[in-house]
């Protein structure tokens, strides 16, 4: 669009400076109008061949991680400058994490019946208070070796460990363990974040980000062109999505299935899974998605796997009719199939009859695992290509 405007302006300028008889002026104008029309036509056609994928989902469902993975897989990835830019983010994440844990321990010590186990050791208390204060600042200081040591000490406190394992009622981020385990590396003087670090880094997305990419096929031929949009997930940002809704090829809805026992960041009385359920229902009802395929990514399977044994699914109201059948790997599969079925039911309940032809597929993902994301995306790509062929009547 912008380049077209430029063209018009340019030609207008040169046009005015010429002296031409009137009838020639007319035909020149027509020629330019025709050129502009052709240009618009070409670019519209080009746009149509770009498949637009919209990442939706509640906050912390893993949308941005998927976004980063796609960048790493199909674009040039992160260059050193960009990696460096994540250093402060990661340091901030570390401070935020330990603050949440320490404050959380204090809260649990006051309110929980079994409070003694949440009481931090006396000699760690000062460290805790100090870190809590740092974590509440807008700008966090650089992570030095000394501070890292203090954080590690606090992390190893049994009260903090106890708090971490009961982190569901607090807002402990899922990657807390990852951050704590890598403190030493993070506090190196010349620390440059790795790809893995960047994937774990937690930045709340505001506004919209997009990337255009083309997954290269097996035959080294360029595949379809995709444009992926990532939007903010928290409640107060949903209105920003609206103007993007028209005509997306596919909605990739991310749902973190490990969150069935956690509360929202924005509203700690609301269960996250219920929030996801309501959001999914809302999205399904939008008329702008009537023709879009729905790819449901049931994300954070790695955390789900471990949690299922500790915390029964029934703590979430949506899953209250769940009946465990055994233990071990079979139980995990059983629980997963149950959750999948719930989402499926929700999908069909909220889809109008004339949307029946819409493609709907469910994928099990762990957004942090690059190989898995690549395999999953290969399947998504195959589905969308087949859809194209079906719609063109070639299949």
């Amino acid at each position, binding site marked *: 669009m912008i380049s077209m405007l430029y063209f018009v302006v340019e030609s207008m300028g040169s046009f005015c400076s010429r002296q031409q008889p009137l009838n020639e002026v007319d035909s020149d104008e027509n020629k330019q109008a025709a050129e502009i029309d052709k240009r618009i036509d070409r670019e519209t056609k080009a746009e149509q061949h770009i498949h637009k994928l919209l990442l939706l989902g509640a906050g912390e469902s893993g949308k941005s991680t998927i976004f980063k993975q796609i960048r790493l897989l199909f674009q040039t990835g992160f260059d050193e400058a960009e990696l460096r830019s994540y250093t402060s983010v990661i340091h901030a994440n570390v401070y935020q994490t330990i603050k949440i844990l320490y404050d959380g321990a204090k809260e649990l010590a006051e309110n929980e019946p079994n409070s003694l186990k949440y009481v931090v050791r006396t000699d760690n208390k000062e460290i805790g208070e100090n870190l809590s204060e740092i974590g509440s600042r807008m700008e966090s200081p650089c992570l030095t070796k000394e501070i890292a040591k203090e954080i590690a000490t606090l992390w190893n406190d049994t009260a903090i460990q106890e708090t971490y394992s009961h982190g569901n009622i607090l807002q402990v981020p899922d990657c807390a363990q990852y951050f704590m385990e890598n403190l030493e590396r993070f506090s190196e003087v010349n620390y440059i974040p790795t790809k893995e670090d960047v994937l774990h880094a937690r930045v709340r997305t505001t506004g919209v980000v997009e990337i255009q990419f083309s997954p290269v096929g097996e035959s080294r031929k360029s595949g379809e062109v995709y444009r992926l949009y990532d939007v903010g997930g928290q409640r107060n940002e949903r209105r920003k999505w609206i103007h993007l809704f028209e005509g997306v090829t596919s909605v990739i809805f991310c749902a973190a299935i490990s969150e069935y026992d956690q509360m929202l960041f924005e509203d700690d009385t609301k269960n996250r899974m219920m929030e996801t359920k309501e959001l999914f229902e809302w999205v399904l009802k939008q008329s702008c998605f009537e023709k879009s395929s729905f790819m449901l990514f049931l994300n954070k399977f790695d955390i789900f796997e471990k949690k299922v044994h500790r915390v029964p699914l029934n703590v979430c109201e949506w899953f209250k009719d769940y009946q465990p059948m055994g233990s071990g790997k079979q139980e995990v*599969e059983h629980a997963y*199939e149950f959750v999948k079925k719930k989402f499926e*039911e929700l999908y*069909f309940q909220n889809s109008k009859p004339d949307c*029946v032809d819409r493609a709907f597929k469910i994928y*099990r993902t762990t957004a942090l695992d690059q190989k898995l994301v690549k395999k999953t995306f290969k*399947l998504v790509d*195959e*589905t969308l290509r087949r859809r194209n062929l079906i719609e063109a009547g070639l299949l």
Partner: protein
Amino acid sequence: MPQFQQHASWRLEGGGQVIDLETAVKDGILGGGGLPTGKDGTLGAAAEKLDLKKMIEGLDSAAEDVPSVFICPISLEPMVDPVTLCTGQTYERANILKWLSLGHLTCPTTMQELWDDAVTPNRTLHQLISAWFSQRYLLGKKRSEDVQGRAAELVQSLKKVKGQARVEAIKELQKMVVAHPSLRNALADSGGVALLSSLLGPFTSHAVGSEVIAILVNLSLDSDTKASLMQPARISLVVDMLNEGTIDTKINCTRYIEMLMAEKSFRCEFMLSLSLLVALLRLAKDKRHPNGIAAALSLLEAICSHEQVRSSLVSVGAVTQLVELLPNLSPEGSVPALHILDDLSTIPEGLSALKDCPQTIPNTVRLLMRASEAGVQYALSILWAVCRLAPDECASLAVEAGLPANLLLVIQSGCNPELKQRAAELLKLCSLNYTTTLFISKCKLTRTIQ
């Protein structure tokens, strides 16, 4: 075995084929290919050892033309033990002896009276017959071994190759399995089936998955294999392919699931997802592919026999979709659809969906005329259930649709007594709101319209 020196060429009756014993033995009558022969040109010991009778039975005689001179004129079968009469005609020993024992003293083909009742074994002919059948038998065996060898090769290659090469290998294997039934058991024994099953998983591409299912659906699998195929991830994969594949893939997937459902260990609450039901309904409505419709209805009929799934079926709008499908089905084709609707009428949601759908009564009534006895039974059952639920509205609809005339025909037809009774009860139900004269006039009117 002593042999006479043959002339360089024999001309045989019918066919004009030139045969001499040496070439017949070495090169076969149709040329090409060879038999192992001993140094003196006799038939190789191996050939003799192969039981002629077995070879004759084993050979698909329709596939190749057995030379007419090898056929016994009495039984019209290839001769295992040819004997010659004094007239020079040759017959199967058992047959001609039977003929003679019945008291006939003539040669069956020439009708000449026999001056000598001796039967002489025709060793020459026996050798020719043996040679001919041996050659073909051994060739057939070799071909089958080649096929098995190639199949084994393909299975091995599947362990190593990926991507497009893998898809090609599976495609070739599938074509072979369809063309050579003997492969089906071989594949199971050699671990090919296990390998193919292992290719199915949550990350299997459509290309690979559809070809694997195309093979598996042609095999008869044992219970263990079927149990391993019933893992939820593998079933989900099949449902996805049912949604997205070509018509052949869809039909294969449908038949595949039907095959798995027959197993005792099939757990319907887990296996029969809403996506599957929606996909089957979509297939059943696809007018371009009648065999797809038939396959989908067949599986839905089997699914409906499980009561737990019925409410799920109703929740995805099966009732309306099936009712609207009825006019497009042939009389035989409509039986499964009617059966499904009848099963769905046994649950409250299904029954009210039937009642609410405006096409239920007209479409079902129309089928009463065309359907077989099984179809009539289901149709009557549906109409009975619906009319009993809401007699006032439904009865008048039914009468308008011409039900009474059809019921009269059913009652008058030669169907079983229960059906007649059901029809009579339904007739009574319909007539409740009408005076006798009005009702009779309605019946007559609709009959003349038809």
